[in-house]
């Protein structure tokens, strides 16, 4: 077991399961990724995309069907979990119900044969880090969900693992606690500087925590990038949909000029930016609601007349559903002064209308 490393390499890591009718399907298909020391990686995707499978493969709780995992020059995918020494935080906390908070946190140290005096001081330090000092003699059942999750985090980090794995650690917490604990995880990561792989289906969590995001779908990596890259330049239509591009319009392609695409000049007449090579005469345009603006575009470009069909007040602004003359519904963020039934002009910047081939 190493306490530090410079690279964790996943090389075409694959995991197949027996599916219906004896057909094996790949829950995880050739995941290749290099995690640098101290890096915070989020595996992001809808349920069933293979992100938890990936985490379990790294932890050693699941055997690989193909590929290999390397910690620098040491191959580790053949080692059992107890020989890898990665700290893992589980979705349902998985605290040992019969052990006190202190015993839970000290368990990994005890398994490593650390002396009891040393265990005491390191547990105290970990408790301080997760701000649970004074709770060490309680049983997990006497703690709130948020406290239990912090015990789980303390238990994983006290062994000073080279890598920390987190499997949707916040999904059982309520909204307020989730944001607090998220900040806590970020702070702990900054203080310890340990590489972390974090699985989530929540794009906000991934954007706020990660140094790099790995977006997955059906066991296949869709995009690997920094949060701003994934947020504003989705690699494909799936990533765009997942990252909140709620307007996806299927339109005819008129012509392409460089990476500019002129679409459906007969109908709404949109100019967009191509993100992937197009195929066929039709394409999909993906636009975020907050990147459609109420008002005229420059020189009337990409400006559409529409009627407000639905208004959802959300405080700072409203989420509007507007219907164009051709009957297309657009989701738009607009000022709270706009009312149901108003006639509006909306526009979208050319570089924020992203054009992808249809899937």
């Amino acid at each position, binding site marked *: 077991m190493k306490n530090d490393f410079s690279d964790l390499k996943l090389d075409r890591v694959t995991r197949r399961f027996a599916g219906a009718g004896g057909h094996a399907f790949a829950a995880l298909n050739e995941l290749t990724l290099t995690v640098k020391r101290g890096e915070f990686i989020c595996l992001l995707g809808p349920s069933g995309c293979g992100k938890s499978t990936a985490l379990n493969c790294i932890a050693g709780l699941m055997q690989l069907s193909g590929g290999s995992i390397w910690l620098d020059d040491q191959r580790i995918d053949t080692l059992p979990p*107890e020989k890898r020494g990665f*700290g893992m935080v589980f979705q349902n*906390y998985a605290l*040992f119900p*019969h052990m006190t908070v202190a015993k839970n946190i000290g*368990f990994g140290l005890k*398994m490593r044969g650390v002396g009891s005096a040393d265990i005491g001081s390191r547990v105290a330090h970990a408790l301080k880090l997760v701000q649970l000092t004074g709770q060490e003699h309680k049983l997990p059942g006497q703690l709130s969900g948020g406290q239990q999750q912090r015990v789980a985090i303390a238990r994983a980090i006290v*062994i000073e693992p080279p890598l920390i794995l987190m499997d949707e650690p916040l999904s059982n917490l309520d909204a307020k606690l989730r944001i607090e604990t998220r900040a806590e995880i970020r702070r702990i990561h900054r203080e310890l500087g340990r590489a972390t792989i974090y699985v989530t289906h929540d794009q906000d969590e991934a954007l706020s925590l990660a140094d790099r995001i790995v977006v997955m779908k059906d066991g296949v990596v869709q995009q690997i990038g920094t949060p701003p890259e994934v947020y504003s330049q989705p690699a494909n239509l799936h990533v765009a949909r997942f990252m909140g591009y709620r307007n996806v319009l299927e339109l005819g392609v008129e012509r392409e000029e460089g990476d500019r695409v002129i679409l459906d000049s007969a109908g709404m007449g949109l100019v967009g930016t191509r993100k992937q090579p197009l195929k066929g005469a039709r394409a999909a345009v993906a636009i975020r609601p907050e990147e459609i603006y109420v008002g005229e575009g420059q020189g009337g470009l990409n400006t559409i007349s529409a009627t407000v069909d639905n208004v959802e007040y959300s405080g700072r602004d409203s989420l509007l559903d507007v219907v164009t003359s051709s009957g297309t519904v657009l989701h738009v963020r607009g000022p709270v002064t706009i009312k149901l039934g108003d006639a509006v002009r909306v526009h979208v910047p050319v570089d924020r209308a992203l054009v992808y081939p249809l899937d």
Partner: protein
Amino acid sequence: MTTSNDSAPRAAFDPALLLVVPAAAFMLLVFVYPFLNGLVDSFQPKEGGWLSNYAHFFTTDNLWPTIWTTLKLALPATLINVGFALPIAYKMRVKSRYQRWVTTILVVPITLGTVLIAEGMLTYFGPRGWLAQFLQFFHIYNGSIRLTHNYTGVLISLVISGFPFAFLLILSYITGIDPVLARAASTLGADPKSQFRHIYLPLLAPGLAMCFCLAFVQAFSVFPSAVLLGSPAGPTRVISIAAYEAAFEQYDYSLASAIAMIMGFVQLIIVAAVLGLRNVFYRGPVSGGKG
């Protein structure tokens, strides 16, 4: 505001409580009354003072040793049953192709009555049974084989009939323990042996104690197999046989009641001791957080 709202409202009669009546009546008629009847009866001996039945039991050479005879059968049988059921149930905790088959085979004897088991054992383990014939035919063992009509026969039959019971009970306790706890322990460096010792065993301890008590009580009241497979006059003269003889051979119901009371008291002591030990261990939910 009315005054009636200030005082605590009197709980209205809940008609659902009536559902308790049949069971309570049944317990009263079929358990409590006969038990108290027997208890009173045991203090009304045919002759002598009110304690003379008990005095008789503890001074008669073919009565008081039956306590030890029964304990010497029931305790090892219980230990064997619980001791073997635990590792097998632990192995069977994960769903596998074999799990259902192994479980079925192990559980079948529970459907057989003690008399049927005794019959089968007499044909199989007897001096001229299949086992003896097989061993002698292949010259594996040529000495005489005495596995029935003695202590061993009764012990084997107690294991055959008691094991499935202990196994099923422990299996249900083990499968109730969230397997993610063992996975969490493994990521913290616990090998399978440590996972069993530090996670499964402490969480199972209360269940094991309970299982031990139930299996022990069952074994302690051994009667048919002690008669059919043992030597009821000698080494397997268990306490229930003594009670039977008092009641149905000497027609001394009062003495029989006293023996039954002593039998119950011995069981109570063992059960209380084991359950008392149970309090030492953690008792509570066996999952590691929110589902």
